[in-house]
């Protein structure tokens, strides 16, 4: 089946996930092979996903861990977990 650009966009996320039905995937790939726009959309969507997965983008506040474990120390010293 020949896909229009708009239909290819609908499949971009599943395409990246690798969960597209093989027949649809083949149609999408056929389209991507000759459509500069859609392959750019695919690449940039993939790039965005790679970027936001990078640990450097969202950092913990300074001393987050220190404050957390200090608070835990106080609770652990005085409380047991509730009986199940």
């Amino acid at each position, binding site marked *: 089946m020949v896909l229009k650009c708009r239909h290819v966009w609908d499949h971009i996320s599943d395409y990246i996930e690798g969960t597209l039905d093989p027949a649809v995937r083949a149609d999408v790939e056929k389209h991507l092979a000759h459509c500069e726009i859609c392959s750019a959309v695919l690449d940039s969507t993939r*790039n*965005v996903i790679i970027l936001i*997965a990078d640990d*450097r983008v969202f950092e913990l506040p300074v001393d*987050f861990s220190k*404050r*957390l474990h200090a608070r*835990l120390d106080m609770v*652990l010293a005085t409380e047991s*977990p509730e009986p199940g």
Partner: protein
Amino acid sequence: MTTPAAVSRQERESALIAAILDGDREKFHDLIRPYERQVYLTALSLVKNETEAEDVAQEAILRAYRKLASFRGDAKFSTWLIAITLNEARTRLRDEKRVLLDSLDNQNLENGDYTPAALTDWREVPLEALERLEIRALLGQAVAALPAAFREVVVLRDMEELSVNETAEALGISIALVKVRLHRARLLLQKRLAPQLRIELKSRKKSGILQRLPWF
């Protein structure tokens, strides 16, 4: 999918949990350490304010300690912990009556029309660029600007890298809904970020590392 590494992590966690429940409370520090970041990001995905997110993260972790005996080995510890964190954050939002407004904002988004940013000259991003504050700020703002229902899914699946199934389980929604929201969220991020990042990266072309990278 269960890899050998995941199995050994799960075994290590089961042993830690058994020891904690048996009285070796200090081991809770070790149990929680690998998940601090995940808990914080999950909290931040809902409350959008760093101080409040830290507070929610601490409360969620304390709650996980107190309720540890109710953890059943049939879910992953991380999924259980994230569900507690989401719950903690939602309780707080409900108290502040912010949830209603957010859910009104979300109406019709799942069926909305969408046109991506078609920029054929923005193909690859060097990860070195992330050392730069501006790039990180753009990414942070874009995620923060997503409607809450989309942000939750993106944070769990794309930032914390849970599977689609784990994301559905943690949020208490169907796998199909996770996929729909993930798709919309990713395209919204692409639409906003592709032009911004392209400009930001191009403006620095002549300085530093980008100079050596041909695709800008």
